């Protein structure tokens, strides 16, 4: 009886699967499906969307500007004089400064990660594909840069070229590409012996075209995951620099600058430390959880 009742159901189930198979699910469809089932990653995605939106349009919605000094609002506690999150040592609105700081930190995170992405992928793919002495030379160079303590390198760059906003992007990006290059090289080594690459070579494609059209698109999975995990790393690196007094310059601000200023006055105005710190932790956490979720989604065997 039960078997007879179940049978039609399982048959329609099989039919449904057949149609799904006809439609075809790409690797990325699968990955998206798995990502959406990961609750932590989904919540982080929404949170991150909210943070990005707040950083993009939030500063225009506050009644104050981020560099507007006001004598009456010095150390104003939260909710006083229309300052939702209070005022800082110069009476500037913390909410507005926080949103600007978030915008700067996010921008640095994304741009520097993009720099590291471009350099790292190009470097790793060429080294891995060409191989031989060129590979040896290029990866040895990466090893050398690895041995240079990162923070010293960036401090030296800052000292050398001054505290330039664009330079912070470049400096951090220029250091973060190392791991990317190693990951990409490893993947390329695995890919280059695959049949489709051989087929492309047999078809007479040049090495450059094979790298650009066949190798790099197939690297995307691990690269996307690593970029998501690089962004919080970069935000953290920038805030370390700001904390050491080598980040963005006043009156412009970043999360790191806000936190280090807040730490100085945490006895009389703890809100100046608490709100930026919470924002920072939320941002970093969102990126990390999304990165973890993506890794599980794209490469399920690592779970």
């Amino acid at each position, binding site marked *: 009886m039960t078997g007879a009742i179940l049978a039609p159901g399982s048959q329609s189930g099989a039919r449904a699967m057949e149609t799904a198979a006809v439609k075809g699910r790409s690797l990325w469809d699968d990955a998206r499906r798995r990502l959406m089932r990961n609750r932590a990653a989904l919540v982080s995605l929404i949170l991150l969307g909210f943070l990005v939106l707040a950083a993009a349009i939030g500063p225009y919605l506050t009644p104050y500007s981020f560099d507007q000094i006001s004598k009456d609002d010095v150390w104003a506690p939260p909710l006083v004089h229309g300052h939702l999150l209070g005022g800082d040592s110069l009476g500037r609105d913390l909410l507005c400064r926080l949103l600007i700081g978030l915008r700067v930190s996010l921008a640095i995170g994304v741009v520097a990660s993009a720099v590291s992405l471009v350099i790292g992928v190009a470097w790793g793919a060429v080294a891995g594909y060409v191989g031989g002495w060129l590979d040896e030379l290029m990866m040895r160079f990466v090893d*050398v840069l690895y041995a240079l303590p990162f923070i010293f390198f960036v401090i030296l760059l800052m000292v050398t070229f001054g505290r330039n906003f664009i330079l912070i992007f470049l400096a951090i990006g220029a250091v973060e590409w190392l791991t990317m290059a190693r990951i990409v090289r490893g993947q390329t080594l695995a890919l280059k012996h695959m049949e489709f690459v051989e087929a492309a070579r047999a078809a007479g494609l040049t090495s450059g075209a094979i790298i650009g059209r066949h190798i790099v698109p197939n690297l995307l999975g691990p690269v996307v995951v690593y970029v998501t995990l690089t962004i919080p790393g970069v935000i953290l690196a920038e805030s370390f620099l700001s904390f050491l007094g080598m980040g963005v310059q006043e009156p412009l601000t970043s999360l*790191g600058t806000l936190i280090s200023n807040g730490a100085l006055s945490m006895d009389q105005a*703890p809100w100046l430390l608490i709100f930026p710190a919470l924002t920072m932790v939320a941002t970093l956490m969102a990126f990390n959880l999304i990165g973890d979720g993506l890794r599980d989604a794209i490469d399920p065997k690592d779970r």
Partner: protein
Amino acid sequence: MLRFLLRRLLVALPTLLLVVTIAFFMMRAAPGGPFDSNRKLPPEVEHNLEAKYGLDKPLGVQYLTYLGHVAHGDLGPSLKYQDRSVLDIIREGFPTSLRLGVSALILGAVVGMSLGVAGALRQNSSVDHGVTTLAILGVCIPTFVTAPILVLVFASTLGWLPTGGLSDIRSYVLPVAVLALPQIAIISRLTRSGMVEVLRSNYVRTARAKGLPERTIVLHHALRAAVLPLVSYLGPAAAGLITGSLVVEKIFTLPGLGKAFVVSALQRDYTVVMGVVILYASLVIGLNLLAEVIQSVLDPRMRLS
């Protein structure tokens, strides 16, 4: 083994040379010099100073001279502090930084590994979820956030520990805790994932089938393989501790080497900057080498040929 070590050392030397070269020319490309101050020195005085330290020679000559000195173990005099050599400054600051870093690494390894093993043994229990959460939080909360909060609680409010400075052993408690926290997070995560994988492997099942006690299986069979990824983390960990100690030394006003480096870089004290870079680069290179050796001892698959 000996041949491997020799070959690695042969590679390490040019690496160090390149690091020195990059740092040397970057430092020199920086605007300003060590003798700039608010009061402009008379040109003759400045010229004499430069002549004394050999800074008036062409850059290439200075570079080669410097390399020659370093090869003899001579890091030169400080350009900012009269009568003090770079070695003096390193000798003054390094012990503090080293004590901080080593204590933090040991604390991080012991606590992190215990947490990681505990999480892996009771997968998906509340203990496991607690460890995973801690691992993520530890990576996401930067040291310069944890440090002021811990100071506020344990120093300013409770008064148990000093807020900063270096008086007795209690001065180390908060800085080490702050430095160790991210290490605990990363190490517990690495240990947990390594352990989870190893516990599913065939040889652990074999050990179980032989009827070995769980304790022996975990401590002797599984842990040994599970710590492998940890060993290769040694190099990056050292680099992370160096960065962390820059911040921690600033917050807790500890007289360490990190602080000396930042000050020297800003003051263009070329020789001190170079000395510190050489020291830390050697440390990172050395620890990476050590990691490879340990790995080959622990893992027969990685035996060096």
